[in-house]
């Protein structure tokens, strides 16, 4: 190796669905370091392998970039990205079953003149489909080393590792492939003729499944069924695990209270830290389930089909099928959803998608919906496994989704100008993803969620606990413990803020306690649940769950219920629209590179939320 001190840097290139990520995982054993490229937010994945460092570049069809992801590839290869050394050698992955298409990209890469090696993936699938390929001849025709691998089984990996030991000895093409696309097409043809390729037959499973999945009627119906099941499963399956975590958090808080002398420190740990973070960690099972389903649908190949089925509808509102995938990811969390818009090549489509992504019902709203639906909507069965609670939840999801589509159409028409780029979407063959691939993706998402719970939400919980606990006021003469506690919260800083904004939120039917929750939820939506838990834990003499507490809460002056159906409705509707999420605002700023768009999104969503909540309050009361 040339530079004796520097490890070899290998750039991993390849088209989407070419088995690139699987190969990366196989080479690095999942020990990837994930960061961002400077200035942009394209994910930068690097990992060590026995011979050096491998850099996983974003998947691309071409070195003539259309999207930000693709531009990063070109810039890294040219050594134009600050702090990122250009790779010493390139490994290009190509799916054996679509080698014809892949060679067009390989031809572009070979023109770069770097040591390059071609990895032909899914050679097992090629054989199963009756195709045949002479890798020796392919290597001779291209002028570079070629290795066939089955990434998830590690076949061929040893040969690749041996090759990566001495890239300076790799053969290079005597003359680079032609620059002109049409001539490169002819070049690819001539290469294929020389490698005695028996073209693979059609993928029988894909053919058969697509006959149903892409069918005008069956496909649309299936799409609807998948979406309904998706949400029903996330709500129903996660419940037992969530109850388990809930009980665990309660037990931990109790143990801390019991172990420490009664006082500020015990209160701080039990009510502030443990209850606050616990009320968020409880959603981990749902997050895991959601991302598992999302990545399974993506890796199996259904997501592209879903984008195909709904593309016409998305086209009507001026977006494209792929924006739908980003919006669907926003159902998990707007942060990855907004990051997923990087696959949308048109900057204009991308900005509109980013601006409406917060309207998709993210998992952080689920705690809020779950609390109030469970407390105020009876669990009446409606049809089969569907209950009234599930239907109300579905309704809230639909309200957000439909509004997003309407707003997108309006924004594209009046707010976001610009040109539209071509829409192309690959429909990969259906494949069972290696479990390791799905697991690594789900783990990444779950870890990001936990880290958020551990940082932003922990910080918010601690700040809130202080705001709720100070200044400490002595209880009035002869007050019951209940009244004393409520008195203390009401006189606290948070209570005063809640009272101060009460005139503004009173038309929505919200009292000061909801006001405190709304202020706190500006950090993250789910914090309102932690805040209410704190308010009621300090104003109720414990025992009853939060659900019971909000159901029974009455205004001490009028004796009326605080949460009337109209108020609950208004609050839920408010949460459908409002952008209460510091992380989303931060990622929006990063992706659009200015505060202008996050400020705009926050403003228009707040106006929408207030207006809609006001109407709901009026109509229901």
């Amino acid at each position: 190796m040339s530079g004796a001190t520097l490890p070899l840097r290998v750039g991993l290139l390849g088209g989407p669905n070419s088995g690139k990520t699987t190969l990366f995982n196989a080479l690095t054993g999942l020990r990837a370091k994930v960061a961002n490229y400077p200035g942009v937010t394209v994910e930068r994945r690097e990992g060590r392998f026995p011979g050096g460092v491998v850099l996983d570049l974003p998947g691309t069809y071409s070195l003539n970039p259309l999207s930000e992801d693709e531009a990063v590839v070109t810039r890294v290869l040219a050594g134009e990205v600050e702090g990122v050394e250009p790779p010493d050698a390139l490994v290009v992955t190509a799916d054996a079953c679509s080698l014809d298409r892949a060679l067009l990209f390989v031809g572009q890469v070979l023109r770069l003149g770097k040591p390059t090696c071609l990895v032909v993936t899914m050679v097992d699938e090629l054989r199963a489909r009756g195709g045949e390929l002479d890798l020796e001849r392919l290597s001779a025709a291209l002028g570079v080393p070629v290795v066939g691998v089955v990434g998830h089984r590690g076949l061929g990996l040893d040969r690749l590792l041996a090759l990566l030991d001495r890239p300076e000895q790799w053969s290079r093409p005597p003359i680079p492939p032609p620059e002109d696309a049409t001539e490169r097409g002819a070049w690819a043809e001539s290469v294929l003729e020389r490698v005695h390729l028996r073209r693979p037959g059609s993928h029988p499973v894909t053919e058969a499944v697509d006959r149903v999945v892409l069918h005008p009627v069956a496909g649309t119906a299936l799409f609807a069924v998948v979406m309904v099941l998706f949400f029903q499963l996330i709500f129903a399956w996660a419940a037992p695990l969530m109850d388990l975590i809930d009980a665990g958090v309660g037990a931990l808080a109790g143990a801390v209270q019991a172990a420490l002398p009664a006082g500020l420190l015990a209160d701080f740990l039990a009510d502030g830290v443990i209850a606050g973070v616990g009320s968020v960690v409880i959603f981990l099972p749902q997050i895991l389930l959601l991302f598992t389903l999302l990545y399974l649908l993506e890796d199996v190949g259904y997501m592209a089909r879903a984008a195909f089925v709904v593309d016409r509808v998305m086209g009507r509102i001026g977006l494209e099928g792929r924006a739908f995938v980003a919006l669907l990811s926003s159902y998990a969390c707007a942060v990855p959803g907004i990051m997923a818009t990087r696959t949308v090549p048109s900057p204009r489509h991308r900005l509109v998608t980013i601006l409406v992504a917060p309207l998709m019902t993210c998992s952080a709203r689920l705690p809020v919906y779950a609390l109030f639906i469970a407390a105020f909507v009876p669990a009446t069965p409606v049809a089969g496994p569907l209950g009234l609670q599930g239907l109300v939840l579905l309704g809230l999801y639909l309200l957000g989704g439909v509004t997003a589509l309407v707003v997108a159409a309006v924004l594209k028409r009046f707010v976001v100008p610009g040109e539209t780029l071509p829409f192309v979407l690959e429909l990969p063959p259906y494949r069972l993803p290696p479990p390791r691939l799905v697991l690594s993706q789900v783990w990444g998402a779950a870890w990001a969620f936990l880290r958020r719970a551990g940082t932003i939400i922990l910080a918010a919980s601690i700040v809130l606990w202080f705001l709720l606990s100070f200044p400490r006021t002595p209880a009035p003469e002869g007050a019951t413990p209940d009244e004393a506690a409520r008195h203390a919260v009401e006189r606290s800083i948070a209570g005063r803020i809640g009272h101060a904004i009460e005139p503004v939120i009173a038309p929505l039917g919200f009292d000061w306690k909801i006001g405190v929750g709304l202020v706190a939820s500006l950090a993250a939506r789910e914090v309102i649940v932690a805040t209410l838990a704190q308010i009621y834990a300090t104003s109720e003499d414990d025992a009853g769950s939060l659900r019971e507490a909000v159901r029974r809460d009455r205004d001490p002056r009028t004796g009326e219920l605080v949460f009337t159906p109209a108020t609950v409705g208004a609050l839920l509707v408010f949460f459908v629209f409002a952008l209460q999420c510091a992380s989303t605002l931060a990622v929006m700023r990063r992706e659009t590179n200015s505060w202008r768009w996050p400020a705009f999104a926050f403003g228009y969503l707040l106006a929408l939320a207030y207006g809609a909540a006001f109407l709901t309050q009026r109509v229901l009361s």
Partner: protein
Amino acid sequence: MASTQPLAPAPRPGAATNLRLCDLEPGGRGRIVAVDPAADLGGRLGDLGFLPGTVVTLVRRAPLGDPAVYALRGTRFCLRREQSAAVRVEPLEDDESAR
């Protein structure tokens, strides 16, 4: 339709009239004659393999008639009419085998 397409080569002898790619029937095949560069931003269609001489099959259309799935070079891509209209093909009969 006056053929003022600058890129289109002279029609091959005996070839049927050229069609837009989006005008193929589902299941129908055509050989690409030309791609209108003005409608192919960044040359992406070419990079994906929509190149003169390539045989393309329109596999099926989406529920509302657009977009459509096209099979070429061992892959399937879905294109909207606005892109596929930029690709001109000579229709192929079933017995005229690919390439």
